[in-house]
């Protein structure tokens, strides 16, 4: 039960922050990516603001053995980068630029995003279902 309450607290604050910061507005996101147009630096303030509490949080994980609910903290990921990290990030960035939504803001704006927002979420879910077969194919090509 604790885990569920903490998840809801985190999700709610995440959604509030996305709305307040302007990141549910595709114009602001595309404005940040549009370096050669009317560039909008807001996203840098959002990312900078979000990183500060998380730097402190990661620091705190080194001083405690376990999280509040008793589970261990996530280990540092394998530093090996791999082709899927790069290919996936390029595909994600392309879609992010095309529409101006990433997964968090897409869900957060569900209640006011209209038909376009729902179509985006359904397409994103379809894309997620494609990931496993595509990953297998990419790994086959990389091994060949």
């Amino acid at each position, binding site marked *: 039960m604790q885990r569920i309450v903490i998840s809801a607290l985190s999700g709610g604050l995440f959604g*509030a922050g996305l709305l307040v910061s302007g990141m549910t507005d595709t114009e602001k996101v595309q404005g940040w990516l549009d370096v050669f147009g009317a560039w909008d630096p807001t996203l840098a*303030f959002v990312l900078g603001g979000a990183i500060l509490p998380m730097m402190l949080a990661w620091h705190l994980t080194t001083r405690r053995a376990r999280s509040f609910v008793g589970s261990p903290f996530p280990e*540092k990921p394998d530093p090996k980068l791999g082709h899927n990290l790069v290919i996936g990030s390029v595909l994600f960035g392309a879609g992010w*630029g095309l529409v101006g939504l990433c997964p968090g803001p897409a869900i957060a704006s569900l*209640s006011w995003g209209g038909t376009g927002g729902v179509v985006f979420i359904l397409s*994103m879910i379809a894309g997620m279902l494609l990931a496993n077969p595509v990953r297998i194919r990419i790994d086959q090509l990389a091994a060949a």
Partner: protein
Amino acid sequence: MIETDWIWGLVGGLMIGMAAAIFLLGNGRIMGASGIIGGLVDRSGLGNWAERVAFLAALVIVPAMMLPLYSVEVSTHITSNLAIVVAGGLLVGLGTRLANGCTSGHGVCGISRLSLRGIVATVFYLLAGGLVMVVFRHVLGVI
């Protein structure tokens, strides 16, 4: 000249970071939106489905409850071109799952612990997004 939008960006950003900190220190987990959604979609995360659903439900409900606080109409300004919306959604879904993270997981949670994977992912999705703006807005004029 500091613009009001930048201050709201910083305030909202701090809230996003605190949300991620609550998830990490509370549940011992990384707050990555694509991972939380994706684990339900491909059934790989059904073991803790209730946490995922609680996170996503609050992610929808809390900003919905805040809308009346705004005196101007809140809009996502999403394009009316549904072909672009479908293509963008497919790419975001496929890409974030291949890369195992998006702006929240790799960007916020990864960069803040100086994870090389998070930093590299962020560099590539920013570059790809910027390139798409050049090609699709300035060359083709479709977005």
